[in-house]
């Protein structure tokens, strides 16, 4: 099936079986390997991308549903050579340990901050449910609050 969409601001067209997980289109066809495979069951969130601005688990998102959509991966989150506030906060708070799950967390956080610019701890608990085996949750919570501060300073 021919599928056309925008990815990180660029038009893309792929010819893949319609039920191919978007994760594999992104990683193997488009060679954007920042998006990670974790559980393959939409549970851990390592594969989180944005589809029309919403956080989506790309392992459970069939390619056919990407047709005509605007997709953003971790590679397209920053713009103009400047880190996205969430990425900057992640650096500032030295969040990653092994780092494998972090792109998914960063994408989920960016999607949340877009809708909730000043999240409370409760908002974070309710919206960011990805899994980190290194248990960097404490640092991530600090970084999410920091990202909100950076975003608000940039306005």
């Amino acid at each position, binding site marked *: 099936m021919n599928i056309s969409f925008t990815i990180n601001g660029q038009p893309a067209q792929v010819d893949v079986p319609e039920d191919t997980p978007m994760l594999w289109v992104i990683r193997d066809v488009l060679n954007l390997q920042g998006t990670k495979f974790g559980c393959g069951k939409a549970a851990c969130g390592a594969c989180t991308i944005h589809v029309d601005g919403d956080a989506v688990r790309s392992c459970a998102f*069939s390619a056919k549903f990407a047709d005509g959509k605007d997709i953003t991966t971790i590679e397209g989150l920053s713009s103009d050579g400047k880190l996205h506030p969430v990425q900057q906060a992640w650096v500032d708070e030295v969040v990653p340990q092994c780092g494998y799950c972090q792109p998914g967390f960063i994408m989920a956080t960016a999607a949340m901050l877009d809708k909730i610019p000043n999240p409370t701890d409760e908002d974070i608990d*309710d919206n960011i449910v990805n899994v980190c085996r290194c248990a960097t949750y404490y640092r991530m919570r600090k970084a999410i609050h920091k990202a909100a501060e950076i975003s608000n300073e940039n306005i």
Partner: protein
Amino acid sequence: MTKNKFPLLFALLIGIVLVASAYSLETATRDEAMSEEVSEAFDKMMLVIAHKRCVNCHPSGDRPRQGEDSHIHLFNVQRGKEGHGKFGLKCKTCHQQENNLKAGVPGAPHWHLAPRSMAWEGLSRVEIARSMINPENNGDRSLKEIEKHLTEDELVLWAFNPGVDQEGNPREKPPVSEEDFIAAVKTWMDAGAPIPEE
């Protein structure tokens, strides 16, 4: 001459009584049959509506249920303002327009939770039926609109095609076929949606 009329009138009277009795008997039998048919339709319909495939997304609280044991949905999934999840964790973060057989994630158009007023969890089938036809609970829908919702809505009918779980095992379907469910709903609605006392 007068004496001869008596048996004739008597026979006429007997005839009238017999015809009336037969008519009355037939009517009673037909009513009884109709009532039984509607009662069976109600039973059949409620086997589906009270099934976990439906009730899991008609929770009494703000968190959906999932699975054959109707456990609270993992990952702290919440109702959100419109029943579509929280801003950063919407239903569509994981659930798409159709079942994903590779990931074992169920899906159907407009996947979301029923509003709080349509909570069925913990109710008996009679209580569910009363709630379902009560405009105060059902979003001010008429019986015709409820019938349409039950028989045509793709999210409702997903119950008959629930896909596979994360281990690839088929999810349990309601114990009534889609065709029989739709017929039962129509029979019940055509009868004015009577609810038995239980």
